[in-house]
């Protein structure tokens, strides 16, 4: 069956994906706060994933219901993260290589 929608400019999408990947790798070497770097990286990754789904997988040209079905795993994953949060609350988090918190003063 011949396709009914206009073919997107795949090469332009490729350049966007390449550019976003270069920015992603560059972001981890910037002297920004780790939380800000994490937000930027997640935003960039979701943008790249959206470009692949919308244009390479042609989701942009499909019926909206199919798009809603495709987004369901992302929503469930966010739900899973929130479901796991109570188990993690109060757990100390520190990545090796980061500065340790200052030690509490000892009384003599």
């Amino acid at each position, binding site marked *: *069956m*011949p*396709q009914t929608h206009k*073919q997107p400019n*795949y*090469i332009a*999408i*490729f350049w966007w*994906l*390449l550019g976003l*990947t270069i920015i*992603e*790798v560059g*972001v*981890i070497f910037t002297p920004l706060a780790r939380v800000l770097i*994490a937000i930027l*990286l*997640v935003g*960039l*990754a979701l943008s*790249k*994933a959206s470009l*692949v*789904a919308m244009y*390479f*997988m042609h989701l942009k040209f*499909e*019926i909206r*219901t*199919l798009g809603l*079905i*495709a987004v*369901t*795993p*992302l929503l*469930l*994953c966010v739900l*899973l*993260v929130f479901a*796991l949060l109570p*188990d*993690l609350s109060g*757990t*100390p*988090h*520190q*990545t*090796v*290589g*980061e500065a340790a918190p200052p030690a509490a003063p000892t009384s003599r």
Partner: protein
Amino acid sequence: MSQVAVLHPQIEPAESPLTPESWGKLGMWIFLVGDAMSFGALLAAYGALRYGSADWPHPSSVLGIGLTAFMTFLLICSSVTMVLALAGIQRGDMATLRKFLALTILGGVSFLGMQAYEWTHLIREGLALSGNPWGASLFGTTFFIITGFHGAHVTGGVVYLSCYLLRSLGARLNQGHANQIEIAALYWHFVDLVWILVFTFVYLL
């Protein structure tokens, strides 16, 4: 098929309203949604374990970012060659289909080769399923399970696309099979999409 369905074929519509091209396409989407949930659960578990660990190593200082960034580039390139292969068969240009399908498979095989090199290098440095010389042992467990699960998907994709390449070389594929190639392309792009997320969450964050 029941007697009623034979007598009244209009009872069961022949086309899906969600994917008018074919039921196969809807089937692939449903499979991909289920598969995405598997990857989503793995990544959520990775995040939870990492957050709860006091000595999780910083991935970008332990894992080779340059190599994996190039692997990401390779998968993006293979997605482009896949859409060009699909465009080829939709036009009835079988030579273009064969050329770009072969390039897509080459991209997948190269990706797997680089992953094998990365794994070998890390294993020699002491990273194991139950051990990690840089801190939390679960770092190795999650790393091998997530990247291994994705690598298995790439392997499946290479085999899947190779079957179509062989069929086209044997002149058993024509413009009428464009929908089958589109379904295979959906799978391949999904593998690329998942790697984009794995690269960010496991290597960069």
